[in-house]
């Protein structure tokens, strides 16, 4: 990526990014442009460089921040109405680490409100458009971040992935997108969706950029006790010889051009001497149902904090406190937020807990075991990211289950906590970007990123 130095100033890099952001304004990528703040930081870095002082590994690199990362620059609304006006006094650990290396946030990116969605159409700010075809969705929930990188506005962007929210938009826009092993990057200061599956990750244009960002952002954080001790290195790396293909995903419900893209990469791997292993993972068929029980249950709990009392939007027409809660939440949440909260309360309520939540938690065990068994037979898995390429805006908004079905191949990784990297895989005949995901065992992230170069 382009880094500021004596020849190229940080101010030049930031001005270019801001100009491009404005040029592509009709894609609705950003919810906030950090013009003054970004230029001020750029000048500070340029002054340091001029004085010959040491600067960070991301000196002057413009980046885009998904709107669910807390920082005092701009409001952190998670593209919702209920967090409108919330300017955070605290900063997410991931943001602190990036900025400590000199990265400069030029804008906050659009997303499905509270990361509930697969198309960025559930945003309070309206949908983001696909980088390749403006009639199509950007994917989601990190749609704005994916398009900001795909249109070359910024060098990289942050994302969150609870069930595919990085990998799917990366695939829909033709960039790299990593969901790391659960616990790799601190979740402190990121708006919680489902605490047992939420992961922080990035969108980049190259595997090397991804590796650099992971080196910077990963690591244990005393503010998030579910962060793993530092492991992001090559210590456990083994030589890759076998790549698995999930036979259960090779059927007519997968779009022919995605199957063709997968076949092309399989041939490429074979030509390089890798052994291809067929995997049967029958429990994955149930991952989506388990996901849409477990995640709404955690969502219902995590989103109970938004009540209009302490921060964000407050409904003005409430006579008593109970009405204030009910009106604020009724007016402040998007329909998809309401669906998920209500489903969560349904699966957790007495009488339904055993049949739904407990059953899904048991299904989760089977899914975890299936990955463990798979990685006894192969080193990495290559899989489609989604059954279909980016769909048309409005095509799936009338039926939530149709939208959920697009997540069938991304959610199993989150339930198991394993890493997945979306790699670009060409385009359809209509010019729509295609991607595939490389899946590895827990803590194989660095090796996974390195191996993705074999597929270029």
């Amino acid at each position: 990526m382009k880094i500021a130095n004596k020849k190229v100033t940080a101010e030049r890099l930031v001005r270019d990014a801001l100009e491009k952001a404005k040029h592509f304004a009709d894609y609705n990528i950003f919810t906030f442009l950090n013009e003054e703040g970004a230029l001020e930081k750029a000048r500070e870095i340029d002054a340091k460089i001029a004085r010959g002082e040491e600067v960070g590994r991301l000196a002057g690199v413009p980046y885009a921040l998904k709107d669910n990362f807390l920082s005092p620059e701009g409001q952190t609304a998670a593209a919702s109405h209920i967090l409108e006006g919330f300017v955070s006094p605290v900063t997410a650990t991931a943001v602190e680490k990036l900025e400590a290396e000199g990265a400069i946030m030029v804008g906050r990116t659009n997303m499905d409100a509270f990361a509930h969605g697969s198309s960025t159409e559930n945003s309070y700010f309206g949908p983001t458009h696909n980088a390749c075809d403006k009639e199509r969705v950007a994917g989601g929930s990190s749609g704005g971040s994916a398009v900001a990188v795909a249109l070359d506005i910024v060098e990289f962007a942050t994302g969150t992935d609870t069930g595919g929210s990085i990998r799917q938009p990366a695939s829909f826009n033709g960039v790299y997108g990593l969901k790391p092993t659960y616990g790799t990057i601190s979740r402190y200061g990121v708006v919680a969706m489902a605490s047992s599956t939420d992961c922080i990750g990035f969108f980049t244009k190259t595997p090397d950029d991804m590796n650099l960002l992971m080196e910077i952002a990963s690591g244990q954080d005393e503010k998030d006790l579910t962060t793993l001790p530092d492991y992001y290195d090559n210590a456990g790396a083994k030589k890759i010889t076998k790549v698995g293909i999930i036979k259960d995903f090779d059927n007519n419900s997968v779009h022919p051009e995605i199957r063709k893209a997968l076949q092309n990469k399989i041939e490429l791997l074979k030509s390089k001497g890798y052994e291809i292993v067929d995997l049967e993972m029958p429990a994955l068929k149930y991952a989506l149902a388990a996901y849409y029980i477990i995640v709404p249950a955690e969502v219902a709990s995590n989103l109970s904090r938004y009540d209009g009392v302490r921060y964000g939007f407050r409904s003005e027409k409430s006579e008593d406190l109970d009405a204030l809660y009910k009106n604020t939440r009724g007016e402040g949440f998007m329909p998809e937020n309401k669906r998920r909260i209500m489903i969560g309360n349904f699966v957790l309520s007495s009488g339904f807990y055993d049949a739904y939540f407990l059953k899904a938690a048991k299904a989760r065990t089977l899914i975890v075991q299936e990955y463990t068994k798979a990685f006894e037979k192969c080193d990495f898995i290559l899989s489609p990211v989604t059954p279909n390429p980016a769909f048309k805006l409005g095509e799936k908004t009338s039926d939530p289950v149709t939208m959920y079905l697009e997540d069938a191949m991304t959610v199993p990784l989150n339930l198991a906590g394993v890493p997945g990297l979306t790699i670009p895989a060409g385009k359809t005949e209509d010019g729509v970007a295609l991607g595939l995901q490389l899946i590895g065992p827990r803590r194989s992230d660095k090796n996974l990123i390195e191996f993705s170069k074999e597929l270029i």
Partner: protein
Amino acid sequence: MEIKREDIIHLADLSDFSLSESEITSLGQDLQGIIGYISQLEELDTDNTKPTYQVFEMENVWRADEILPQDATREELLALTKEEKDNQIKVPKVL
């Protein structure tokens, strides 16, 4: 199972939402479809399978019981609310 109008009202109450009449109808249809989909888990044999609630490899991460410096001050936090009086958050009457 069939999701009735009173089920939606009950779930909205558990969720602390007020819903309009049109939302009760549309969310009823949506939730019927979603619950229909997730109910397919019934087919999966989970006898003798233990539940998994988290996939973090570690348990019981302890730290010393000490007050750590906070990232935000009382003033900064109070500044986020709509109405403040005497260093307290002001809300409508409770009863």
